């Protein structure tokens, strides 16, 4: 079931069209990633979904209601965590969260605040002003604030930015658990491709205000035909060069490791031929195409 639908969304600033007609949807219980090179329109899209920016044209329907006409009702059941919206910095962590609880009309505020404090490990910072917190601590407070109203849809912009690896992993697990347990829908932007690949059910790739890819991370990665074969050759390196030239492949050598870019279908034959030509190697690894490869290709402007 679609919980969010975007139809032909456009945004123009001073005659410059930033978003050129986006259409996509978000299913209930889905984690959707929005990726794109800098300036692709990710933040503008998120800001329109949140109601910060008013679209020039197009429709945003959330929970079956038009965002333009039912913004307040919709935002009661949504929330966000973003690095581009500052929290009131003079208030303490506790005061910030109390204020959010007020805004969302949370019935048992004390109970909810205690839950949030424990979930986001905020015991130590509880009475500190937000201004005195580190970047990572502020991210945690932002994430905590985003959960205060039990949102059905969460918009997360770089949710693990500035978090240490252990805390980042905890947060990733937390959101997956939220999705699995409470069927929450999440839209996520991140420059951490591994994070997007592991968290997202589906990914939208934006470029120049248009969607250029919309599929599961694995399907998008498969659009890249080439894998990377890495070998530490110990015998007959010239034979390897000949074989590479014969198949018209590209090769680079760094610290005795030869990296060959090769189509996946050709790999078994290539390895067989290496054995036949008596090329010995002490190390081998095959890097299958990843979402990052796909992203890099899009960012470089190559067709996939």
């Amino acid at each position: 079931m679609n919980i969010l639908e975007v139809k032909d969304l456009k945004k123009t600033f001073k005659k410059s069209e930033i978003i050129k007609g986006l259409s996509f949807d978000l299913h209930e219980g889905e984690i959707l990633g929005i990726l794109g090179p800098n300036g692709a329109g990710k933040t503008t899209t998120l800001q329109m979904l949140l109601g910060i920016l008013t679209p020039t044209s197009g429709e945003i329907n959330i929970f079956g209601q038009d965002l333009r006409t039912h913004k307040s009702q919709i935002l009661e059941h949504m929330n966000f965590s973003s690095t581009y919206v500052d929290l009131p910095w003079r208030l303490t962590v506790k005061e910030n969260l109390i204020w959010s609880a007020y805004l969302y009309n949370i019935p048992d505020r004390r109970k909810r605040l205690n839950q949030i404090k424990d979930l986001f490990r905020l015991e130590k910072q509880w009475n500190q002003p937000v201004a005195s917190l580190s970047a990572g601590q502020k991210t945690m407070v932002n994430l905590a604030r985003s959960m205060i109203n039990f949102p059905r849809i969460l918009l997360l912009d770089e949710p693990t930015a500035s978090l240490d690896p252990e805390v980042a992993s905890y947060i990733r697990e937390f959101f997956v658990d939220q999705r699995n347990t409470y069927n929450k829908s999440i839209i996520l932007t991140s420059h951490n491709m591994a994070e997007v690949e592991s968290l997202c059910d589906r990914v939208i790739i934006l470029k120049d205000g248009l969607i250029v890819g919309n599929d599961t991370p694995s399907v998008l990665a498969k659009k890249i035909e080439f894998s990377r074969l890495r070998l530490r050759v110990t015998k007959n390196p010239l034979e390897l060069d000949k074989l590479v030239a014969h198949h018209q492949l590209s090769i680079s050598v760094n610290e005795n490791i030869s990296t060959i870019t090769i189509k996946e279908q050709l790999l078994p034959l290539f390895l067989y031929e290496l054995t036949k030509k008596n090329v010995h190697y002490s190390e081998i690894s095959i890097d299958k195409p990843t979402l990052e490869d796909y992203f890099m290709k899009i960012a470089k402007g190559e067709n996939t």
Partner: protein
Amino acid sequence: MKLKVAKTYLRVWLKLTSQQFQSQVANARGAALLFIFGKLFRLGTAFLMLYVIMGRAKLIVGYTMPQAILILALFNFVSNIAQLFMRGIYMFRQKVVDGTFDFYLLNPLSELFYSLFSATDPMDTLLIFPYLGLVVWAWINSGFPLIFSSVLFVLIVVVIAFVLIMSWHIIILSVGIKYLEVDNTIMLYRDLEKMAAMPIEIYGKTGSAILTYLFPFAIVATIPARLIFGLYNPWFLLGFAALAILYLKLSLFIWSRALLSYSSASS
């Protein structure tokens, strides 16, 4: 459902106002006292001017001294109520620049409610009472009875005036979004509004007509005073109510157009 929403708005407004009050008491006691002194001083100078004028002529465009004082007092009373609720408009530019307005847009409450009413100034409340006292004193001394129907009409005018003032404030906020400029627009508005502190007849027929029908600042003081003096048909209030609704709709349209050009503090 609507009652629940209204309760939420009321609770948030009360919380914001109490925070504002606490902040003033804790951090800016001196500034608050100076603010009240400044306001009373300004009112005093306006009275002095009236006194000087009245010293030379017994009537000012047909109004006696207490009647002119009533107009001035009504102006200050209504204008003060508006400022009491909408003081936050003076800080609006800063809120757009530092991203606070983004925060308003993201919340489940109306961004317009926040922009207009998030900084209610409790110091203005203290001034309501002297202004109200002055209105009552001038009313009694103007020679017209303080009767229920007149009080009711004046209250209706105050509500209409509040809606009009709110509409103009929304237009000022819209300019603030579009051009990141609030100070000069407010000054322009305040100067126009101030013209209504005196009986509008002093501006001649054209000036009066502009201040009654085009920029109806006359609703703030001269029109309620005329109602009290029996110089105005109360049915005309319906026309002013319609004008106020028209202005409100226009201001909301301008607000929505301004939001269309808003590019967020982070962009």
